[in-house]
């Protein structure tokens, strides 16, 4: 299949990119599970996904799926006083909006890595605001 490559990955200060990469990948399975599970509401605007709470790492993984099956996965440390659900949702919404903006660009081929500066900026600002 090899379809689950990340279009974009960015990590917070800790810069454990590889670790996050791995976490994201593992969470993809759960995301897929959820997608297939929900028959009626194909697009779950937000999918709070607190399942992955490792004792050591103590992080939370949130998932979000768009209509076009593009998945956004967010990993946050629980040490961060657990962001409220609203915040997570709004963050996903912003992500989605930025993603659609990127999509609008005719020079962007779906499936490419996302290199849009605007997108980067948005993500950075979001991360800063969270951490």
């Amino acid at each position: 299949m090899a379809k689950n490559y990340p279009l974009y990955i960015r990590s917070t200060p800790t810069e454990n990119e590889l670790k996050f990469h791995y976490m994201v990948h593992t969470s993809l399975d759960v995301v897929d599970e959820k997608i297939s599970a929900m028959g009626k509401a194909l697009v779950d605007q937000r999918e709070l996904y607190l399942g992955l709470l490792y004792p050591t790492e103590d992080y939370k993984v949130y998932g979000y799926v768009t209509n076009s099956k593009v998945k956004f996965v967010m990993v946050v440390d629980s040490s961060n006083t657990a962001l409220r659900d609203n915040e997570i949702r709004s963050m996903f919404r912003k992500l989605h909006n930025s993603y659609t903006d990127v999509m609008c660009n005719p020079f962007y081929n779906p499936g490419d890595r996302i290199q849009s500066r605007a997108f980067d900026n948005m993500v950075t600002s979001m991360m800063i605001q969270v951490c």
Partner: protein
Amino acid sequence: MEGLTLSDAEQKYYSDLFSYCDIESTKKVVVNGRVLELFRAAQLPNDVVLQIMELCGATRLGYFGRSQFYIALKLVAVAQSGFPLRVESINTVKDLPLPRFVASKNEQESRHAASYSSDSENQGSYSGVIPPPPGRGQVKKGSVTHDTVQPRTSADAQEPASPVVSPQQSPPTSPHTWRKHSRHPSGGNSERPLAGSGPFWSPFGEAQSGSSAGDAVWSGHSPPPPQENWVSFADTPPTSTLLTMHPASVQDQTTVRTVASATTAIEIRRQSSSYDDPWKITDEQRQYYVNQFKTIQPDLNGFIPGSAAKEFFTKSKLPILELSHIWELSDFDKDGALTLDEFCAAFHLVVARKNGYDLPEKLPESLMPKLIDLEDSADVGDQPGEVGYSGSPAEAPPSKSPSMPSLNQTWPELNQSSEQWETFSERSSSSQTLTQFDSNIAPADPDTAIVHPVPIRMTPSKIHMQEMELKRTGSGNSVLDTLNLRSDGYSSSDSFTSDPEQIGSNVTRQRSHSGTSPDNTAPPPPPPRPQPSHSRSSSLDMNRTFTVTTGQQQAGVVAHPPAVPPRPQPSQAPGPAVHRPVDADGLMTHTSTSPQQIPEQPNFADFSQFEVFAASNVNEEQDDEAEKHPEVLTVEKASDPASSLRVAKTDSKTEEKTAASAPANVSKGTTPLAPPPKPVRRRLKSEDELRPEVDEHTQKTGVLAAVLASQPSIPRSIGKDKKAIQASIRRNKETNTVLARLNSELQQQLKDVLEERISLEVQLEQLRPFSHL
């Protein structure tokens, strides 16, 4: 040979014309109007005139300086002679007759031609982009100097001699220098290494300094060839270069002429922009862009779909990443298509990039597409980019914008409510709640929502109901008021069921945001819903009812509970009756506590309260609704206030509380006011029930018992969702208070009884000895 060499005759002619146009005697600038007149008099087609203007840099500068003017005149001559308009043609075309203006004299045509001997560079090869013909380069040089001069228009006119010379110094470097030129003269914003033109720049720079003398050329001499102006686009991004390149890439079939004009335009633009913001698009540039736009999209008010734009810009051979960035910057409304403005901005950025300028992180102000029709952007917004939007059907931003405004326009409420809906849907897990929610949310009008915090789970759950109850009691009045208001307002906007139902439900819902599951789910047998009805009922009605039916109501209430299921009218009928008797009972029992007062107080209180509330809120609604179900209303109101009064009494104090209860009742009553008739009806029943309860507890055990009995039978008003829940909550509360009071009274009784017992025992004791004795 420099850019524009004019023969003497021409010179003279031109300066004559210049002074002719220079009505303001500025000696430097010519009034556009006059110039245009003049040009029109030249009997040239409009586009040619435009082109001339572009070429000479007037469009860029916005005015006709002497040099521009001269160049323009020369171009007119060229055009009139049938030569293609090109920058080079100014100098190359020999024997060019003087421009003919209908109204003017054109004697020196022949002489004019003569002067153009040199510069036979046949440029023509702009298509090659980079290396402009050497001669041109020279010209450019000259123009560069002129350019430098021109900006400092004031400065010009000094050194007639040198200028001509200096440009010629750098002929070899011309092609590149030309381009660089543009940057150089004004000190160049950036000595960016233009493609291949790097080395030339430096020499050019030298030439530049040398040619500073060229200033003089301006005034004294023939106006610097247009090319100079163009060339000396110091600050502006070397659009010219890019343009030349671009046109080459983009329009393969572009005539040299176009290229030339473009280039010159760019150069001129550049020059002008040396003064201004480097990102500013000069007129000529803009003209060029517009022309390009037209080739893709003839309608200037339309826009270019993303794919076409992509092809177009890809021809510029910039890396895709940069193009992508440029697109991001320039597609202002994010619709995947470019309006004219956006296109110009994008083009400009491409030019800049080609010339070595780094792309900005944000769109520079001068490139912001606000210049062009906002309606364009609006239109564009309305049409979600056809091309760009491959994915994300759900939230295309453009679709958002148009949808939002439309939403806003059409349904301001709905808009907000839609947001709330969103919130709700997100919050509420069950879909079924949505329906219920709708009413809730809808009413969630900001108004009501404000009063009653919106997001309340629709799922009828006890918790919610309890919450509701609390809320109700807490913000009972306000809620009711708002509910009232809302219900009216909302019934129209809501998508709910029937209106009356809706109204009721609105109210109920609002009140019981949390749940719809009506009293049924309420843990304690929900007391009759007096409040709902109360709220609904207009104060007037209530009062009337109260005064009239106080006694009866009580009874009616009592009788009512069993008949809960058929909420509607039937209940109403018995309701009132029940209420009356109940009321009567209550009244009677209240004798001690001035029952008259109680009912009356509530009346008063209700009345005033109702009035207050009604007045403040949607009185009409209440009235209307009240009217609809006058009986119900009255009954309910009567019962409600009474019950609420009583309840309040119970709550607050143990004894009299009549006064307290009255106001409390009123308040409670007012809350019920809000709900519309339907709920009123239901409430009526509940009220009836409640009233009896309330009364009872004040009355004491017997009544209490009755009340208690009635309570359990209180209804299961299901249907109404929120209202029901709210009502039930209220009822429960009231019941609680009643029961508490009952309890206290019973305790009292118990004590009394105990005392009696003790006394009796004592007596017995006393007697016993006797007996014993």
